[in-house]
Each structure stands twice: as C-alpha cells, then as structure tokens.
C-alpha cells in the first residue's frame, strides 16, 4: 500500500529523515512511534504531500505520488489529525459530509453513508451538534468518520490521541482497529505513547535518528 524508498527530508541544515525505507501492506494496521521532533509528522505530511521530500521515491497503491495531482492523491486516503480539524461552524453531519461533497458525490448517497458511520461510532444522537458541543473523544470520532466516508484504501492518523486522556485514547485506537477490520482499510497510526502501543499489541515501527525501523 505504501512504499518509501530512500526518502530524505531536511529543514534547512537539520536532516529530519535520511534514506528512509518503509513499507505498509494493504489491509495492514501499524503504529509508527517516535520521540517528539523525531520526524513522525514529517513522514505523514510527505505521504499526503502537505510538504515535499528532498529525494527518494514514495509509492501509494503502486503509483509514485509525485506523478499524481495532490487532490487525486488525497482522495486515495483519509487523514486523521491530532487537532481534529473540524469546522466549528458546521455540524457533525456537515463536517463528515464535506469529504463527500468535495468529490461531487450525490447528496443522498453521502448522507446515508455519513449517518451509517456516525451511528457505528456512537454519534447518532449528535448529528446536528456543533464540534464545540462535543467532547474531545467525540470530536475525534467525527474526524475518523470523515476520513472513512469516501471508502479510502488507506487511513493516516497523525497523533489521533494527542489531545485526549488515556482512557479516551484507548477507546479511539480500539475504534480505529475495529474500523480497519470492518472496512478493510490499511491504517498507519502515529503516536508517541509506548503504553498505548503495548496495550494494542499491533505491528509497530519506530523513527529514530532520521531512520525508520520495524520493531
């Protein structure tokens, strides 16, 4: 699903990633852990091209991402952020439906899928609530549903539990794992919490000194 071959990225003189080799198979669920400032978020941002690599190859679903338009690439995946990135002036349902609307899908089709997924994650009673009316965990569940709406083959989660307490974090990771199995989607989850990774007992990679190693 994802292949990184000798990928490097620097910010000025500071080398963040150096000749990184990494692979994530279709339908695979994996954690990527590392200390703060180790380059975890840089790696994820390279994958959805919010920033560009200095060198190396990145393939998603067998295609070099540099040869795709950014929006075409982003339509192949769903991204979940630490800060949720929900629009405050849109309701839960509107926030989720936004992902389908930007693709020009039919309103009824989007709405049915959004309601199905929101019900699945326990937010059926909050469809018309605004993000500020929800708890952190509920906001993150909304963001997860938005990432899943267009049935992508890959979900990238950048510190999805970074703003949540331990109990809610575990709840979100468990939800991601369940959705990975139910929806058949590959997931790469970034976290700095060793404890959570141990509790989840899933394949994990570590980023250290600009390199990525499988644990």
């Amino acid at each position, binding site marked *: 699903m994802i292949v990184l071959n000798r990928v490097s990225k620097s910010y000025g003189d500071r080398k963040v990633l150096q000749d990184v080799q990494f692979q994530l198979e279709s339908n695979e669920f994996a954690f990527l852990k590392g200390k703060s400032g180790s380059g975890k978020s840089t790696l994820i941002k390279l994958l*959805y091209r*919010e920033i560009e690599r200095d060198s190396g190859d990145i393939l998603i679903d067998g295609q070099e991402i540099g040869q795709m338009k*950014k*929006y*075409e690439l*982003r*339509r192949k995946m*769903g*991204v979940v952020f630490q800060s949720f*990135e*929900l*629009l405050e*002036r849109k309701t839960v349902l509107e926030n989720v439906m*936004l*992902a389908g*609307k*930007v*693709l*020009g*899908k*039919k*309103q009824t089709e989007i709405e049915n899928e959004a309601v199905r997924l929101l019900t699945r994650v326990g937010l059926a009673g909050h469809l018309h609530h605004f993000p500020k009316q929800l708890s952190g965990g509920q906001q993150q569940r909304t963001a997860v549903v*938005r990432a899943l709406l*267009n049935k992508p083959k890959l979900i990238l989660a950048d510190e999805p539990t970074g703003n949540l307490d331990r109990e809610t974090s575990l709840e979100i990771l468990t939800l991601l794992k369940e959705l990975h199995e139910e929806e058949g989607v590959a997931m790469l989850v970034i976290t700095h919490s060793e404890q959570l990774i141990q509790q989840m007992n899933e394949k994990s990679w570590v980023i250290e000194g600009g390199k990525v190693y499988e644990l």
Partner: protein
Amino acid sequence: MSFESLRYIWDDVQSGLKRNKGASLASIILIFVAVTLIGCLLLMRLALEDTITYVESQISMKVYVEEGYDTEQLSSVLAENDFIQSVEVESGDEVLAGLSHFFVNREHLLDSFTNGAMNDAIRVQVTDASLIEEVARSLDGMQGIEAVIYPQEMAQTLYGWINKVDTYGSIITLILLIIACMVAYIAFHLALYQREKEIRVKLLVGANPTHVRLQFLIEGLLLGLVGGIISLFSTFALFELVLQPIEQAVPFLIQLDSSNRIIVFSMQCIVSIVIGIGASFLATRKLIRDV
C-alpha cells in the same frame, strides 16, 4: 465539473457569505466607497471637459486688414484654410461702434476716429482652440493683414488648466483605483484568514483547488457586484442632486449627455466586479498553494 459539484459550491458560497456577514459587509462598504469616489471623479471630469469645450469655443481672434486691401477677398482666402472654422467680416465703422462703450461721456474722443480711421477686421474662429497661438503667428505674416489680436493670456491660462485637470485627474483616478484594489485585497485577505481552516480542511480531504478557488471567486464577484450597484445608485443620486441642477442652471457650461452617464455607471459595476474577483483571486492564491 459535475452538476452536484456546482450545487455544493453555490451552497458553500451562500453559507460562506451568511456565516461571514461582518467581513462580507466590510468588503462591500470598502468597494462601494472607493468606486463611488472614482465614479464621482469621472463624472466631474466629464462635466469639466464640457465646460472646457464651451470656453474654448468662445476664444476667437481678430484680424485687422491693411488699408486698401480687399477685405472680402481676404476673408474668402482665410475661410479656405482647414484650421479655420468660420470667418466674420466687420467693417471699420462696425469695429468703431464696438468700441463706443469705452467712450461714454467722452464721445469727442471717439469722433477723432471717424472718417475711415479704423481698418476693417475679420473675426476668425479656429477649428482647434489649442492651436490659436500657432494660427495667429502664421496669419500675422500674411499679405494684407496688418495685425492679429487674440486673448493670448486667457488661452494660455485655459490650456494650463486643461493640462492640469488632465494630469491630476488621471493621477487621482489611478491612485483611487489602486487604493480600491489594495483595500479590497486586504479586506478579502482578512476575511479569508478567518476561513483559512475551511480552505485547508477542504484541500486535505481531496477537494480540487480550482473548485475551492471558484467558491471564493464567486463570493468576490457577488460582493463586488453588490458594492458596485450601491455605488452606482449613490453616484446617480449625487448626479441628480448636484450636477443636474448645475446643468439646468448653466446648460451652455455643463451638458453631460446620457451616453457619458451610462459609461460611468457601467464602469462602476465592471470595476467593482473586477476588484472583487481580482482581490479574491490574489487572497486565495497563497492559501491554496501552501496546503
């Protein structure tokens, strides 16, 4: 682009304007103020051009014919020149009669001019009043012409003013246009800054940047159009309340024809729309490029 996409973009335009009422209103007001000023300035300039044309038409020269020379023949020769619009012959007695008001209560002085004391004269109207000095110089050397008299100082003052109006008017209009564009750009930029997250999220979930930009261009177009229409009505009201009464009082000085008014009003709408779309385009450019 599919029909659904267009519908969603239109929905976003509507909700974007509703949810950002303050910023939308500020953009409309700024465009309205700038374009109204430009419109008023243009109307005044057009009115002034009419005044200048009228004053120009009043400038003529007088050619005094040498004694014994055939005045009628000379006037025919002059009338054949392209730069001369009209000629009018005045006999020496008529010239003298024209001077009589200078000699009220001193008629004995006027009597000394009688018996053919004054030469015949030809009043000459030139086609282009700005060439009056040049024409006067060339006529001065012609056979049969004794002297050429024209209001040199007035002509020079008038053309000095015309040049000033042209130069400063153009500069002020240009400065206002630049200010209008900059102010609209800043207003749009501030409005978009509040919606930076919306743009970012849309792009991150896979929106085509062209579609995202289209939404903001349509918003810019609508805000510009509203600002332009309000500005049009304000300028029209100003015309009706200020310029029209002046026009009616001194119709020979100011006569703004309807085509000029239509040009100014249409220009206001077009400039407003261009400012709205242009400012929106520039403001979204960086935001879209960076995500």
